[in-house]
């Protein structure tokens, strides 16, 4: 279970202090598929970064499976991000000079998974997301946007994470590919029993998730 308690995030901007998140609290159950919606600047990506231990809150706590990640050491945070979280970025963020397989293998390498095992797992995941027929050996530049996002999802699932955080995963895709990616994410999260938090401004997509949180000016304005 993901428990967020009174999360606040403030940034210094010159002499001013900007509050990006203002005392947010919510809970997400294991295996739940939730969305966070809001306008640009509402604090969606900041929240996602804090949930994924990419950033730290100014105050508050985030508990995942009884672990307060705000209190983890840097070393444990690295391990936590590697094994417990899977990221799906809007711009895919694949390493450009690695092939699709190598990109998927990367988190497993950091987790010290044996070479052959990680290759087998990467190929299996790529098959599940539909990257086959030699495309798994292509570099990102030789794949379409939809294909790159599928590789990104495969990479996010590589280490069997408890939580997948997706930041506008369909933002750079046309509607057809967007739906395909959303469905894929949905299906895989169900099959792997993974909690998914998706940040999106597409209300159609948000409507298909188990629950939706709406953010405005760093505050949670509604929960559905």
């Amino acid at each position, binding site marked *: 279970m993901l428990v967020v308690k009174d999360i606040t995030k403030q940034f210094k901007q010159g002499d001013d202090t900007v509050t990006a998140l203002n005392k947010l609290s919510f809970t997400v159950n294991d295996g739940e598929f939730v969305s966070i919606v809001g306008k640009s600047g509402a604090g969606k990506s900041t929240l996602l970064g804090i949930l994924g231990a990419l950033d730290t809150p100014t105050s508050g706590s985030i508990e995942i499976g009884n672990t307060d990640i705000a209190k983890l050491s840097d070393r444990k945070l690295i391990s936590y*991000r590697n094994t417990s979280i899977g990221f799906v970025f809007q711009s895919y963020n694949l390493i450009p000079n690695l092939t699709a397989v190598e990109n998927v293998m990367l988190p497993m390498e950091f987790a010290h998974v044996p070479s052959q095992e990680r290759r087998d797992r990467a190929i299996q995941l790529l098959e599940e997301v539909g990257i086959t027929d030699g495309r798994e050996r292509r570099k990102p530049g030789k794949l379409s946007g939809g294909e790159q996002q599928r590789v990104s999802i495969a990479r996010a699932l590589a280490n069997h994470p408890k939580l997948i955080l997706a930041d506008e995963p369909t933002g750079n895709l046309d509607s057809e590919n967007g739906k395909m990616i959303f469905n894929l994410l949905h299906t895989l999260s169900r099959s792997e029993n993974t909690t998914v938090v998706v940040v999106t401004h597409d209300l159609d997509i948000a409507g298909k998730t188990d629950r939706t949180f709406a953010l405005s000016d760093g505050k949670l304005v509604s929960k559905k």
Partner: protein
Amino acid sequence: MNIISRGIRNAFRNTVRSGSIIIILALSIGLVIAMLAARQAVQDKITSVKANTGNTITISPAGVRGFDGGGNPLTSDQLAKVAKINHVTKVVETLNDRLTSSSTSLKSGIDPGSLGKRNASNSGISEGPVMFRLDDSGSDGATAHTFTMPVTITGTNDESAIKTAGTTSLTWKGGKMFDTTADTNVAVVGTQIADKNNLSVGSIFTAYNTTFTVVGIYDAGNTFNNDRVYIPLPTLQKLSNQSSDITGATVMIDSSDNLTNVTNTIKSQLGSAADVTNSADVVAAITAPLESVASIALFSLIGAIIAGAIIILLTMIMVVRERRREIGVMKAIGASNLVIMWQFIVEAITLTLLALIVGTGIGVIAATPLTNALVSNDSTNSTDSGPSTTQMRGARRMMRFAGPGQLGQASQRAIETIQASVGGATLAKGAALALIIAILGSAAPSLMISKIKPADAMRNE
């Protein structure tokens, strides 16, 4: 796929840029290797000069120079003690004598000329009793009307006595040196006196009423030294009734670095009985410009290393800045700072090793020309710089005025014949320095990597 293979592959992500960096870095590494080779060559030359040039100490009986002056000869016992001093490698002993017309069948190969006549006249020889060999054309047989130059005979215990008598090169025109330790009636003669007396190997002549066989004819490269006769030291000591007497000795030591110490030891051992001289100042003047070149090579080497490190540093800073988001992504998916740093260090090392390969070629080609340029430039600057400047000027002046002797020409050779070569040791040092360049150049970018937050993976979108 692991850190190493990713680092290597990253080095080729932008082939044009990587190629340019490799070429620029190769020039720097080439200079490093060339300077290493130059420095090594100059240091080898300095060692060689110190071991072979000016590493001699001359001992003469007090008050005596050649046949001038007076005093008592040295003894074999005195010189035996000198031979035991540390760093002394050899003591070449000589006993010189002049043969008169009554004591040898030989005639000098040198025409007296006006100088010889003046010297003889100033010595009262033309008027006095015969000391030099005379062509007795007068009726009384005691007054010189014409004369030839005396024949100098030298007893020695070592072949190098011929070289140390102011000779730069020694060529055997026939036969060879005699056994210097045996008391035998054999001799080697210079080409000048051999031609004058129609001597060849196997010829005989008389001296001290004794018949000598010529066993070798040498060419010492100058007229004066080619007009001499050398016989075994014990033979001359016996025939000239100078048992154990020595009129000159040349002490050879292992390195001119020890010249002053050994000279002082000899002086303290022999006391007022001998005049002990060396050429320490000349050696210092010869090696000083070489030391200067070695210093220039060292500074250039350090400069090239710094330049190389800066090239790789700027390159890696640029690369890290470019890949900021990628680094953030790697951190977001679980890479530690150390893993990412190593990946970039491997990338820097890959570029540096490729540059090392190209740079080695450049270094091999440039080593000798650069060394010669350094040496000749240093020489030119010194020669042109006026009378009160560098030591190089002193060295060249020494060379100029040292005359045809061993020291002068050896000095000139020391400065002018430096051959730099890139050997295994130089390459190993070059590779080690290239590695240092890569690590130094990666240090700051590594620090930058550690400061990049994983959240940058999202912020830069």
